[in-house]
């Protein structure tokens, strides 16, 4: 307990105590009603898939997310052709590793237990900005210029297709992260950034169309569309 020297002096203490008087009016009935409402909400939530997933322990939720990410990455890596050997450069590997690290960080933020103090908002905002910045930076760090020049100049046309694929790939990642999120502040935007990163990861690993303009329009735009789009949706339709 607090020691006497920790407390404010008697005058102020007396005044503060006035605010701590319990409210005796209708306490029993009120508490019963509150408990019944809350219990009904808990029972209803337990019957849903999000409710079931969110009530797993934090370790289990993280394990589920990492397992799904790993399974998707494993299938994608071996089932679909990767970019050619000539394109597997240091920047390519660095980009993939960076996307992976940011994705895992986002997952840790989204699955943060609610009994811990909420993370400062600037940390979430930083992660979102870094994620967006990384996708843009990766676009400026594509194939060696000499090789890019020899490739099909219709890269910008293909950007639409890449963007579509990236968005489609990001949706399950976003959905999964939202399913395990117990209600962290900015959780939706962090999940959106993670979805953009996942889309970029797959596109970077498999897309063989070179060129900065293609990567900017077709790859980096995926993360931007997710973050800006969902940010606007949440601004217009605030969650309860």
């Amino acid at each position, binding site marked *: 307990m607090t020691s006497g020297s920790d407390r404010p002096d008697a005058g102020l203490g007396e005044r503060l105590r006035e605010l701590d008087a319990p409210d005796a009016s209708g306490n029993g009935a009120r508490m019963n009603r509150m408990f019944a409402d809350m219990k009904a909400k808990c029972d209803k939530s337990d019957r849903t898939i999000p409710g079931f997933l969110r009530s797993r322990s934090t370790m289990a939720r993280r394990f589920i997310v990492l397992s799904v990410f790993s399974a998707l990455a494993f299938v994608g890596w071996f089932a679909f052709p990767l970019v050619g050997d000539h394109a597997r450069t240091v920047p390519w590997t660095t980009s993939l590793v960076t996307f992976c690290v940011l994705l895992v960080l986002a997952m840790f933020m989204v699955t943060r237990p609610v*009994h811990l*103090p909420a993370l400062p908002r600037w940390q979430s905002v930083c992660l979102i900005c870094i994620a967006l910045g990384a996708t843009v930076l990766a676009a400026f760090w594509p194939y060696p210029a000499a090789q890019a020049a020899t490739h099909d100049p219709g890269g910008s046309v293909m950007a639409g297709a890449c963007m579509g694929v990236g968005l489609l790939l990001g949706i399950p990642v976003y959905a999964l992260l939202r399913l395990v999120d*117990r209600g962290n502040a900015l959780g939706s935007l962090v999940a959106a950034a993670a979805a953009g990163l996942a889309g970029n990861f797959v596109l970077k690993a498999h897309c063989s169309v070179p060129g900065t303009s293609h990567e900017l329009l077709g790859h980096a735009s995926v993360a931007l569309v997710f973050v800006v789009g969902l940010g606007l949706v949440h601004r217009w339709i605030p969650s309860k």
Partner: protein
Amino acid sequence: MANSPPTPAATDEELMDAYVDGNEAAFRFLFERYAPILLRLTRRHLRNDELAEEIVQQTFFRLHGARNDFRRGSKLRPWVMTIAMNLVREHWRRTKRRKMTNLEVETQAAPEADFMPLELRQRSELLHVALEKLPSSQREVVELHWFQERPYAEVAQIVGTSEGAVRVRAHRAYATLKQLLVSEIRGDE
């Protein structure tokens, strides 16, 4: 423990353990024990009965969702307080974002004031105003340290900072409050 009924004498942690093991009655005991404390805490922060009730219910809803994270041997009270304070902070952030006017809050505030004598109502109002003038980081420390009688170490754990920082915040908050209420306190003496 899941099948044996919990007793009112059980500790918070025993009740929570029983609840994690599936004993629904234990949750009821926990609610009866903590809801009045949380209701007073949230009403002081929000000055709105309906909102305070909502946040208390939401706190227990989140506690229910997080029950599988509870480890035997850990303390329950910091858990509950942290969830509630996170929700209060989130509420303030949202209302600030929606640019809710102070007037709107004031008209909904302190419904129990109707039953108070005028002088007491004015005193209560003055104190509320003084508390509201504190930065939220200081106000929550006063709330937990003074009203909830939590030691600084536990307050630090709940608000997510160091014990030293909490001591500084508390010292500044009490000094500011005393300054704001100085004439009244002198009048009392």
